[in-house]
């Protein structure tokens, strides 16, 4: 501290800087972009800059001298806190920096300040008082509070939307099932009386109703996903193998060659969701194969310190990178239903799963050559 202000007599004689040491210190105090004050051992103000006097509404610093925080406009509990901190800093001899605290000013403004308190120790080593500085951080605190408020509101809205999707989808199922059941009965009873066009219309009703039921079920699954996630130790290699079990028929029919790396790790995750991720991505690789080309699908893992990073690579038809965001939205399809079946929920589900686990999903692809899907899951402290 003694070295930091280096303006003794030699500067007083400097013609280009004709100012005394006292005036210089005063100038520094008033120019300093923070409030500065100092108190004696009993927490009585001994001095400070004018900004503190303004906050306190006492006019000038002179009017502050000898007063305590209880003589200031701050609330009693604020004054209690200020004095407690003074006591602690003076008795421990350790500065306390970056204390965030409220302060009611003389003009009635409720502000937030960030305060530093440093013990003042004389040459004999005795603590004789305290030096304090503070600055106004009201704007920062308020924007932080606003952000927290928006985040809470957003979370509530999201939950409401999810709930809405669930209820709507759930209640839509019943009339759809009735329609489907009735049309089956209609077909059964009157098929002979319908001409070929009539039979086709019945078929359209059946197909459309079935499709709508699938979509509604898709929304139900999507909206409930993540409600009851059970985190456990999962061997991702086993999860991947189990996923391929469910795709056995498609694998056999296409003659696909699957290579699952032995490096797939044991992780902390939800087994059901991890299996669903693999099943959707491998399922897509099988579905979007190139005609006449044997599908080759590789599943690999390359981790970082913070994430597990899996990849599912195929030699299929590929995806134009223009669709890098679109493909992850619900009901989004890049092909006609007559070319490729499906509700357009698969990658939306994958996207939701990885987000639940603090990860990301993306792809790189060349049309006509294949697609590499990558997804990350955030590692937890308990991972093996």
């Amino acid at each position, binding site marked *: 501290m003694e070295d930091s202000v280096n303006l003794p007599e030699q500067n007083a004689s400097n013609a280009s800087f004709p100012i005394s040491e006292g005036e210089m210190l005063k100038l520094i105090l008033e120019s300093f972009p923070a409030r500065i004050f100092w108190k004696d051992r009993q927490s009585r103000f001994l001095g400070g800059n004018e900004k503190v006097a303004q906050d306190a509404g006492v006019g000038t610093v002179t009017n502050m001298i000898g007063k305590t925080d209880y003589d200031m406009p701050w609330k009693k509990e604020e004054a209690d806190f200020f004095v407690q901190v003074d006591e602690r800093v003076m008795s421990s001899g350790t500065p306390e920096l970056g204390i965030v605290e409220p302060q009611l000013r003389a003009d009635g403004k409720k502000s937030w300040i960030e305060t530093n308190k440093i013990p003042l120790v004389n040459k004999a080593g005795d603590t004789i008082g305290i030096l304090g500085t503070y600055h106004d951080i009201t704007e920062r605190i308020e924007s932080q509070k606003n952000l927290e408020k928006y985040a809470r509101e957003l979370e509530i809205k999201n939950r409401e939307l999810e709930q809405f999707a669930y209820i709507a989808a759930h209640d839509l199922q019943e009339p759809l099932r009735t329609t489907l059941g009735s049309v089956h009965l209609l077909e059964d009873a009157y098929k002979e009386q319908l001409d070929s*066009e009539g039979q086709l*219309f019945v078929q*359209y009703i059946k*197909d*459309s109703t079935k499709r709508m039921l699938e979509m509604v079920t898709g929304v139900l699954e999507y909206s409930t996903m993540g409600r009851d996630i059970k985190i456990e130790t999962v061997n991702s290699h086993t999860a991947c193998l189990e996923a391929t079990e469910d795709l056995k028929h498609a694998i056999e029919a296409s003659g696909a060659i699957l290579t699952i790396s032995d490096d797939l790790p044991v992780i902390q995750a939800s087994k059901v969701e991890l299996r669903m991720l693999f099943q959707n991505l491998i399922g897509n690789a099988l579905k979007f194969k190139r005609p006449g080309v044997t599908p080759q699908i590789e599943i690999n893992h390359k981790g970082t310190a913070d994430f597990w990073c899996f990849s599912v690579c195929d030699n299929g038809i590929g995806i134009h990178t223009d669709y890098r965001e679109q493909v992850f939205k619900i009901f989004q399809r*890049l*092909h*006609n*239903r*007559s070319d490729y079946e499906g509700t357009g929920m698969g990658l939306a589900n994958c996207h939701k799963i990885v987000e639940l686990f603090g990860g990301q999903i993306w792809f790189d692809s060349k049309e006509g050559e294949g697609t590499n899907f990558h997804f990350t899951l955030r590692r937890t402290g308990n991972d093996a």
Partner: protein
Amino acid sequence: MLEKILLVDDDLPTNHLHQIILRKKGCANQVQVYQNASEALTFLERNEPDLILLDINMPKLNGWDFLDRYVATNWDKRGTRVIMLTTSLDPKDREKAMTYGVVVDLVNKPLTFELLDQILEKHFA
């Protein structure tokens, strides 16, 4: 009576139902159907229908992409009129559709006999 109508919709049953309705109504000599927009654009290189019934929401090239290319090729200078078909309830779609000079209307799918009557009366009477 219209000479040629072009139907562009990715949904096969919808296309078929619309085709039947147009046929039963007897409002065109020829109805050409495409399930994807790029094939329909190829068809337009050699054909000038009187009316295009165009779905908005299609995979890959959607109705808007179709219109962008249609206008970029200056086909909007032809006499063809476009009516867009949609399941959307968003009024912004109508506003957007009308910014393309060639679009005369936007109607909700599916076409019914009644709706078709209204269209014919409004735009082709």
